């Protein structure tokens, strides 16, 4: 891409902030597109991955697929996924959406699975002993206890989707990438300005979901709510 001389140094950042202020209508417009695309992708991914992950975790089935999916997902470069989506499906919002959903499903599914699967068996046994049905156990025991980890997965996926949605511009999906990848029109100031806005969006999404995660966590399990990283816990799992 026609990147000009870097020049500018720190003054580029001043110019970038100026760009955000001066062209705020354009920036807001593209930010909105970015959020709509990210939100849509995340919504579809949630609708697929949460029921599937929670269901499999409840039944303690399919652990190999559910756990390794996260590893496979991480190995998918977002650029390659969007590119392949383009090759198979053509330009436009829809195929970018498909690519983003493919990127968002693995972390949500894996975390949902592990979260429900690893609910203490004692708690489940006690609930069964109290005469709860399988559905009641899921709704009143497993889900509340699984919520922190489940949310950690959603959080990871959200940040990932907001970041990858930037690449959507290449495939005609709109969003802030349209500024970020168009240095010819917006110069380095515009590119850096868009980069600042994308970064702020990702950090805001992360902080917001972190807050939500804390609010939704039952008080009893609030003591340890680590940002879940399956690889730390399952160090031995290939």
């Amino acid at each position, binding site marked *: 891409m026609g990147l000009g001389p870097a020049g500018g140094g720190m003054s580029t950042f001043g110019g970038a902030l100026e760009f955000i202020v001066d062209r705020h209508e354009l920036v807001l417009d593209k930010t909105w597109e970015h959020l709509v695309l990210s939100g849509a992708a995340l919504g579809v991914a949630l609708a697929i991955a949460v029921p599937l992950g929670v269901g499999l975790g409840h039944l303690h089935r399919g652990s190999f697929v559910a756990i390794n999916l996260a590893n496979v997902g991480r190995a998918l470069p977002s*650029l390659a996924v969007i590119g392949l989506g383009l090759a198979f499906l053509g330009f436009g919002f829809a195929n970018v959406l498909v690519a983003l959903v493919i990127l968002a499903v693995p972390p949500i599914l894996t975390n949902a699975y592990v979260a429900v699967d690893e609910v203490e068996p004692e708690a489940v046994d006690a609930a069964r002993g109290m005469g709860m049905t399988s559905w009641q156990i899921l709704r009143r025991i497993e889900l509340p206890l699984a919520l922190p980890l489940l949310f950690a997965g959603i959080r990871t996926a959200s940040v990932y989707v907001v970041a990858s949605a*930037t690449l959507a511009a290449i495939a005609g999906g709109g969003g802030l990438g349209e500024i970020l990848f168009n240095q010819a029109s917006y110069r380095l100031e515009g590119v850096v300005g*868009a980069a600042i806005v994308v970064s702020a969006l*990702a950090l805001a999404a992360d902080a917001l979901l972190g807050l939500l995660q804390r609010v939704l966590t039952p008080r009893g399990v609030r003591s340890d709510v680590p940002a879940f*990283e399956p690889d730390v816990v399952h*160090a031995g799992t290939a």
Partner: protein
Amino acid sequence: MNDGPVIPDFGQATECVRENRLFCTEWVRDNWEPVLQPALLQHVKLTVIAVLVGFAIAFGAALLAHRYGFVERPFALVSAVLYTIPGIALFQLLVPITGISVLTVEVALVGYTLLILFRNVLEGLRATPPEVLEAARGMGLTTRQTLWRVELPLALPAIIAGLRVATVSTIALATIAAFVIPEGLGRPIFTALREYFKTEIIAAGALAILLAVTADLGLVLLQRALTPWASARRVAA
């Protein structure tokens, strides 16, 4: 990007390429040496440098944090912020500072590895069972000896698990480096995207995915070789 023909050379192109069919094997064969192989090698180089430098920094920081607890929070916070900033944005944010260079790309790639590696090394070190530490102290091992002979070997699975995640995500992220410098597998993907040349998109995209999967498997094998006791336990269990 800036060199090479923007429009495929229709003069010599095969029918498959002219019609832009989904996948033309002969194009891949003809362009393996001039296009795909160099991109693959550049990609490996970008990744190896980033992971090695990132590991050196994260490992040092984790040892410090293991010894002096107060180091953990600031390092984790900075690396978490770095990790959250989208890759393509971080590249562009660095351009005014480090220019359009390999350095820009490497700084960003290293930045992304820090959180995962730091957290895994530290968690690994902290997971040493207290009775093992006590036994080490009882045998007269100094703090340093305990670290190198007991804690680190026991932390190896967690450390390598971190290396796996860091390597695989660096490979994925390095494709985006092509927006800043004309290197790595992102370059053919990006060129092909602009020309909408399906074969090249698929070939380069598949190569990037294959590279990540291969690296992941390689590190699993390394882990098994370095921690024979873990697999012995697995067999026993």
